[in-house]
Structures are given as structure tokens and as C-alpha cells.
């Protein structure tokens, strides 16, 4: 197992905020692993994802260090792809799908536009968009929310990054589409042996995809470990409560008199 990066005493404080949004003493990421970052609203998941990607707002203060084992920190768009919760923040509404998906490849893989478009066509097909040839010439608003997220994934993968950061990419979608997207992500990450940072508030969703879980609360790391270990033997009360309050299809009904 090769170390990809090590975070040490990482503290992120947003402009004019009294307390830090993220305060981690230590966290390692291994190359090629699938790491899920889990926590409730405001726990610092997006802050961690953005800090890793070098995408924090300029006004945020970042102390401590993120030590990459590569010579240079990964460059977003080239070495690291990022997909947001809301596809409208990943996609530009006035550019065609083809232009957006081809862009990363043209810039970073030294492809001509026509080569980059062929590459884009393959990517758009690989994320399961029907009729990829005509999709290239269409605009984002012509697709459903789930399809737009697929296109955002294709755009993030354009330059063949080795790291993919996915921040709540299914939260705005219905569960059937969510399940399809997670299966897609699983396959793409496996094929390209990418490192995946998967941010979600849904511990069950994470459990189906991740090798390792990081649990955050109020900006601090509560627990971190292999998925099975965290689920079977959670070390903290908080993680136990999080697992207990998660509803699945076999959870008891709350209705009185419903014997299960």
C-alpha cells in the first residue's frame, strides 16, 4: 500500500468565522483506495474535500499541512477530478456537452480538438448517456438531473485523473438514479484504478462502495477505519448512534402495534 498523502494538523477556518470548519490532527490517504467521508450537515465534509483538491475559497485560512507523496500537489482538472452535489456547479450551461467533456483532454492530454472530441464521445458513452454522438452537441439543460451528473463525471474524468473527489453527487437525485450512479462510479474507479474520495451523509450508501470510512463531526475526525470494522465494531458513541438511526428496509416500523 502506497501512501498518497498525509494530512497533519489541518485546520481550515472560513472568513470571519470564530471556529475552524475542519480540524484534523492526522489522516492518511492510500493510493488507489476508496475512502468515504461521512458526517451530518456542517460536519466539514465539503471543506475536507475542497482542501484536498486545492479548491478552498481564497478567503479561507488553511493551517497545517497536506503532504503529497508526488513531487507536486495534484492539479485539479488534470490529476484530480471533482464532481459536486449540484451538477450545475460542475457544468457550464452555455457550453455543449462535447466542449466540456473534451476540454480536460485537450488541455492536459495534448489532444487536438478532433481527437479530444472522439475521446469525449467514448467517455459520454461509458457513463451511459444514450446516443452519445448527438449528446456531444446538446446543452446540459437538455438532460435530466441524473444524466447531468453522469456528464459531470465524464467531464471530471476527461484528463484521466488518478484521483476522483465526488461530493454528495447523488443527494439531489432519486434513489433509483442514485443506485445507478454509484454502480457507475464503482465500475469506472475500478477500471482506471483511481483513488476515490466519496463524500456522503449516507453511511449505508458509503458502505457499498468504500474500503475505508472517515466519520466527521463538528469538523473533527470521530473515527476512521476499514468499512467492515467501523460498521461491526464502531469505536465511538457517535458512530454507533449514526448507524442506529440509519433506516433500512428491514428497520422496524414506528407505527404502534406493528409486529416485526
Amino acid at each position: 500500500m502506497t501512501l498518497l498523502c498525509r494530512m497533519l494538523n489541518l485546520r481550515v477556518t472560513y472568513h470571519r468565522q470564530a471556529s475552524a470548519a475542519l480540524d484534523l490532527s492526522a489522516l492518511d490517504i492510500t493510493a488507489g483506495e476508496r475512502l468515504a467521508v461521512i458526517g451530518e450537515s456542517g460536519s466539514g465534509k465539503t471543506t475536507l474535500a475542497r482542501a484536498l483538491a486545492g479548491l478552498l475559497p481564497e478567503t479561507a485560512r488553511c493551517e497545517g499541512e497536506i503532504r503529497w507523496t508526488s513531487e507536486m500537489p495534484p492539479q485539479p482538472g488534470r490529476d484530480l477530478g471533482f464532481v459536486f452535489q449540484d451538477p450545475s456547479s460542475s457544468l457550464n450551461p452555455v457550453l455543449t456537452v462535447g466542449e466540456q467533456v473534451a476540454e480536460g483532454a485537450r488541455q492536459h492530454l495534448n489532444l487536438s480538438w478532433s481527437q479530444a472530441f472522439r475521446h469525449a464521445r467514448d467517455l459520454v458513452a461509458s457513463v451511459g448517456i444514450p446516443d452519445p454522438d448527438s449528446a456531444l452537441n446538446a446543452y446540459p439543460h437538455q438532460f435530466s438531473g441524473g444524466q447531468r451528473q453522469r456528464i459531470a463525471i465524464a467531464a471530471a474524468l476527461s484528463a484521466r485523473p488518478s484521483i476522483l473527489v465526488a461530493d454528495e453527487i447523488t443527494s439531489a437525485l432519486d434513489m433509483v438514479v442514485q443506485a445507478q450512479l454509484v454502480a457507475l462510479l464503482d465500475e469506472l474507479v475500478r477500471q482506471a484504478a483511481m483513488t476515490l474520495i466519496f463524500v456522503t451523509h449516507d453511511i449505508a450508501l458509503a458502505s457499498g462502495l468504500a474500503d475505508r470510512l472517515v466519520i466527521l463531526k463538528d469538523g473533527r475526525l470521530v473515527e476512521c477505519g476499514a468499512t467492515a470494522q467501523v460498521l461491526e465494531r464502531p469505536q465511538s458513541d457517535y458512530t454507533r448512534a449514526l448507524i442506529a438511526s440509519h433506516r433500512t428496509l428491514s428497520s422496524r416500523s414506528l407505527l404502534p402495534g406493528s409486529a416485526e
Partner: protein
Amino acid sequence: MTLLAVSSLTKRYVSGTRPVTALDDVSLTLDRGQTLGLAGVSGSGKSTLARILLRLMPADGGMVRFEADDWLSLSGRDLRRRRARMQMVFQDVLGAFNPRATVGSVLDDPLRIHSPLKERDRRTEIAALLDRVGLQAALATRSIRDVSGGQRQRVAIARAIATRPSLIVLDEAVSALDVSVRETILRLLVELQQERGIAYLFISHDLAVLRAVSHRIAVMDAGRIVECGPAGDVIERPRSDAARSLVAAVPRLVIRG
């Protein structure tokens, strides 16, 4: 006893080039004090049904009987008066409230319109409502923007029960909440149902949530109800493709080898 009977409801949206059939011959019934869960993927027509029941927009055809009324034919004063009987709680978005409102004024509005109470008695009632949904009376002076998402949903529930309705339509009412908060809100809703005999039409695309609160579950697909039955049956033995794929999509807490 049947509280709500929807028969052959249809609705088409005409916008842009092609019309969308959002409701296609929808029929269902709901008994007093019971919960009907309504599931379906995005775009299947759930919110359209909710909006028509709440008289926020007209249907193209069909009929709704609610309590003793031919509900879609009510208008004017009759409708205003009877509206107290059917209330709503939508997804927690600030847009569901006037952003300048205080928690107290959110609750005062329905009381002013639907109850004979004088101002001082309304204040007492507001304190009682807040208490009932687990909020402190002092919150009444707080701006609705300055309370947490979970607290805002409690205020929305207090607003809904203020007029003593027999039916509350909940559209993705807990979807935006953290799991721990969601669980407390679901428990509150079940308690209120026991206490006051309120029926719920509970809309969600999450079958695990519907399982927690529903007596029966109906599944919508492309504007039609494709399956309806006791909650346990629909989840354990789904008969339609739509229900089967919703069941399969619920994430399981899996421990992989």
C-alpha cells in the same frame, strides 16, 4: 372510514414543445387516521398530485371527495373555510416561509385566519403548539431563517396542526434532514397521528422512510399508480417493476468481506 377518495385524476402540463402527462387516471383512497405512503422516482407525478389535492393548481379531470365535500368544486368562502382541514408540510427549504417571518408569526397566520381566538389566546396557543412539537416558547420571536433545518420542520408541523386538520400532505418533508433529526421528526409525526387521529399522505422516494410511518404504500410511475397495498407487502413482495426497482435501490448497510 374513508377520509379521502381520489378518482381518475388527470393532469397534463403544456410547456415548450411537448405536453407532459403528469397524472394519468390516478385513483386512491385514504382512511381517517391512517398513513398512505406515496413512492416513485423523480418525475413520476407525486408532487403534482399533492399540489392538486391542496388546491394549489387545478386538475384537468377526475374527482376528489374529502370528508363530506366534492373537494375540487369548492370555491370562495367554502374553500377558504374547509382548507383548515387539509394542511401541508413540504421539504425544508426556506422558500416555504416568508424569509422575514418570525417563528411566532408563522404560527399566528393560520390561527388568525381559521380560529376565533383573540390575540392573547393565540399567543397561548402558539406556545402550546411549539411545546407540542418539542420547541421552546422563547423561539417564537426568532426569525425563521435563524433556526436549524430540523427546528424549521418542527415549525412547519406546528403550523400544519394549528388548524386541527384531518389530513396533512407531506412532500419529501424529511428528505433534507440528517438521519438523527429525521428519526425524531418521524417519531413526532407518528405520535401526533395517534393523539389527534390525523391522516397523512406521505410522499417520499425513500422506501425505508415510508416503511417507518406508512400503513399502506402506493407506487407511482409515469403518472400512474402501478401498485398499492399494505406497506410490508409492497416492500417484501413488490409486484410492479417500478416498486421492485425502488426496493432494490435502497442502500443496504453491507459488510463486505
